[in-house]
């Protein structure tokens, strides 16, 4: 089947390039994302993984979960190493897709410089940011991706200060400012959207950036079974927005019918349990601004006008929803 024909997950190939037996925690959002990217990309790929949960749970000498050629060296250099690997393939006359899969710490923070360099040079690679909103590998420390109010071990809930005081860095805007050929945000709960974006990333030449929200059970203090449900709610509340910029053309790929109050999202995760009403309102106001920015929709702040008690969140065009 040619790639272009893959429209729903029913069209996805069965072959795994990220195999069973990896050591991720039960319910790991990163594992869901990586496994499906590997299925969609197929055999002709090479992956670089920097320091992250993914390196730890996918490779322990002499074993490895990736069937792809694989390299790891350090934390902050994903953009640079994949540039080098791609240059080698180019010199050898091979078309292989070169992918870097870094975490949010390795992308938003310590790896931002190498990411910017690779984007600036328009290297012909796919850079995937697996965003679980903290340094999970080292045991849940705050990163530039951690949302406002969230508990982490370095934004603890103290007597004086409770949780992270800064809002999540807008990495998408930073990457977009480089004018890269393709970038997109993905959710593991929006299957067909996920499929389309990974496929598009595979097709495009030049620097491609996929930013995926990947819930973390221990770090978010959530139920393992709810990782996909939380991802869905992240989009419905506006905490996460699904869009792509394809050669300068920005497109929202999914729009919730109505904003769900962020409280519903927060309630599913222990990392937000301590949040004061005031902090929740602050976060809500931030979301409302973001909502307005993405969807061009005014929502009165604060607080946004919220419709409570809505049950049906399934409003996108995914043909598998609502069955």
């Amino acid at each position, binding site marked *: 089947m040619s790639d272009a024909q893959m429209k729903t*997950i*029913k069209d*996805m190939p*069965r072959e*795994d390039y*990220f*195999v*069973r*037996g*990896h*050591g*991720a*925690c*039960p*319910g*790991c*959002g990163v*594992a*869901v994302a990586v*496994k*499906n990217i590997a299925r969609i990309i197929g055999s002709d790929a090479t992956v670089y993984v920097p320091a992250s*949960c993914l390196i*730890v*749970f*996918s490779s*322990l*000498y*002499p*074993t*490895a*979960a*990736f*069937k*792809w*050629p*694989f390299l790891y060296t350090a934390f902050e250099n994903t953009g640079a190493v994949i540039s080098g690997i791609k240059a080698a393939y180019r010199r050898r006359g091979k078309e292989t897709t070169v992918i870097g899969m870094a975490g949010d710490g390795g992308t938003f923070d310590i790896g931002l410089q190498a990411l910017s360099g690779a984007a600036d040079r328009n290297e012909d690679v796919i850079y995937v940011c697996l965003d679980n909103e903290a340094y999970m590998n080292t045991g849940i420390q705050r990163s530039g991706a951690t949302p406002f109010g969230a508990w982490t071990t370095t934004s603890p809930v103290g007597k004086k200060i409770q949780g992270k005081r800064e809002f999540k860095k807008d990495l998408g805007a930073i990457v977009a400012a480089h004018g890269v050929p393709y970038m997109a945000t993905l959710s*593991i709960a929006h*299957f067909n959207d996920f499929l389309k974006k990974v496929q598009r990333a595979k097709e495009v030449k030049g620097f491609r950036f996929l930013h995926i929200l990947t819930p973390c*059970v*221990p770090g978010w203090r959530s*139920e*393992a*079974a*709810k*990782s*996909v*449900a939380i991802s869905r709610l992240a989009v419905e509340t506006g905490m996460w927005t699904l869009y792509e910029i394809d050669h300068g053309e920005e497109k929202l790929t999914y729009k919730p019918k109505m904003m769900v109050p962020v409280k519903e999202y927060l309630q599913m995760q222990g990392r937000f349990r301590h949040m004061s009403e005031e902090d929740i309102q602050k976060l809500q106001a931030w979301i409302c601004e973001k909502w307005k920015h993405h969807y061009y929709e005014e929502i009165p702040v604060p607080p946004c006008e919220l419709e409570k008690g809505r049950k049906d969140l399934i409003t996108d065009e995914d043909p*598998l*929803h609502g*069955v």
Partner: protein
Amino acid sequence: MYEVRFHGRGGQGAVMAAQALAEAAVLEGYYAQAFPYFGAERRGAPVRAFARIDEDKISIKSQIYEPDMLVILDESLLDIEPVAEGLRSGGKVVINSTKTPEKVDLGVEVDCASVDATSIALETIKAPIVNTSILGAFAKIEDIIPLESILNAIMNRFGEKLGHQAGVMNSEAARLAYERTVVGRCRGTRKLVERMQWLPTWDELPPGTALPAKTIDGVDVGPGSAWQNFTGTWRTSSPRYLKEKCIRCLRCWFSCPEGCIDRLDDDYEKWDYRYCKGCGICADVCPVQAIEMIRGVHEW
């Protein structure tokens, strides 16, 4: 010197248990140390922790190979690890099990305290974190440290880290476990699990770090070789597939972090229970309740 080796899984609190035991020993006037083996694995993976207790200052810093006591937080580890390896003759064992000691097969016949720590933990602290209940059972079989000091140590360690209420709940768990622990002799019929390992000499190693997919000494190495890691032993509940309800939407197949759902030719599903960690995502995303989670390790 009295040496204890803890066997648990990431997330069960084996390290905290070892630390609390060491603290209890210090409260009793002993010298003590506790330390983890830092593996690189995540929640659910087998972990080990160690505690040493002595009347004099303890200098040794190596791991414990010949323990006086084994504390096993997860019975299923007996099937995948040589847990009883090195246990000293006359040694003892504390195990989290619903079985009486006589029904536990450790691989060596020793004095054994068994307790259903998981149920106690769920009752008292509302989570399957069994590290404090298991210490109650420890006090029942071993008189080196009285229950009182163990409860105080738990209050100190857990109270400091997680708040007073957590300290109270956890010491309640230990107290309840002390009461419910059954002491007897466990069986020694099982053969200890043998680890398949490729341990080359330096000149047998490939020169660089790179490995192709191949089999050496019966062990698969290189790309894709993680298949040998049967993570299904991690699970505490199991998905049951009701094929007649399945609409073949493939949401479970897409959403399974393990990739352990086989998508058959007709798009019906089949679970590879060797790898299922029991996260329950498949049941949660199923729009027609064709998957249900059943507590315990099962296969259908």
